[in-house]
């Protein structure tokens, strides 16, 4: 199995800035997209990607190409960082948490695209973290079930089950937008 990143990882570990820039160019924005949807916050997602790359540089010199695909490792680190932040958030006592205004529009309101995407984004953020991760990896990264399962450290069957539950869950949260989103049943 040829890993296109392996050579650049080794070079970056030895101080090659061009190889490091290539890795950043190939992966940073894709990582950011998933982290942004996982966390629902731009600045936090950027922090996560920054941490992922810092961890990459410190491990790069010891990277063993045959052991795991680089991209799998990278996404696994990113997901773990997101899980940590989500758990820290939920550990914040309610009194200390900021008031979040309920901006949801009433179901029959004429929704413009901004409001609609806000609603969808919020419904996605409210999903349990592993269901959300499974959906994001398969939708935004367009990864096959095998790759996504490997990133999440679970079997393909477990991933399929997570995906099915996640989609059902998300659909039930967005049921009131059925007409706007089109498609019936």
């Amino acid at each position, binding site marked *: 199995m040829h890993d296109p990143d392996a050579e650049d990882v080794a070079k970056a570990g030895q*101080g090659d800035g061009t190889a490091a*820039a290539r890795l950043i*160019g190939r992966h940073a924005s894709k990582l950011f997209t998933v982290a*942004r949807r996982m966390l629902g916050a731009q600045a936090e997602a950027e922090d996560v990607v920054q941490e992922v*790359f810092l961890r990459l540089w410190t491990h790069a010199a010891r990277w063993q190409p045959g052991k795991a695909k680089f991209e799998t490792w990278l996404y696994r680190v990113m997901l773990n960082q997101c899980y940590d932040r989500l758990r820290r958030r939920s550990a914040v006592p309610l009194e200390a948490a900021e008031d979040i205004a309920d901006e949801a529009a009433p179901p029959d309101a004429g929704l413009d695209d901004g409001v609609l995407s806000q609603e969808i984004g919020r419904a996605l953020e409210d999903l349990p973290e592993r269901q959300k991760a499974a*959906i994001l990896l398969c939708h935004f990264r367009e990864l096959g079930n095998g790759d996504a399962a490997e990133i999440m450290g679970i079997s393909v069957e477990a991933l399929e089950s997570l995906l099915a539950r996640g989609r059902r869950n998300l659909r039930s949260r967005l049921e009131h937008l059925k007409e706007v989103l089109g498609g019936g049943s």
Partner: protein
Amino acid sequence: MTGEESDREFVDRALRRLPASAPSSGFEAGLRAGYAAWNADRQKGLWAALVGGLRGLSQTVWPGAPLWVPTSALAVALLVGAGLGAALPVATAATDSGFSLEQPQSFSLVASDMTSEEDF
């Protein structure tokens, strides 16, 4: 269409409505700067490790002395050794005594000095 397929289609349609999210401008430049900072620290770390190792060794060899003292002593010793090695003539090979512990005498059941069985 099964419930699962219908859920998938619904979710795909919904997620397609999400706007593309892009990191702030200068984000990738920040990542590259992070790499440069890490690399600078790493190089400083390598140099510090080398100096620290030398210092530890010098304290073992010559406790209490500054680093340059054992380093200079070692350099002088190496120069003297190299000078002597170059100046002295190569030692001649020892005369062959015909006996060596490293090369034991050959032995054969049909010894050359026993010409034939008739000698018995």
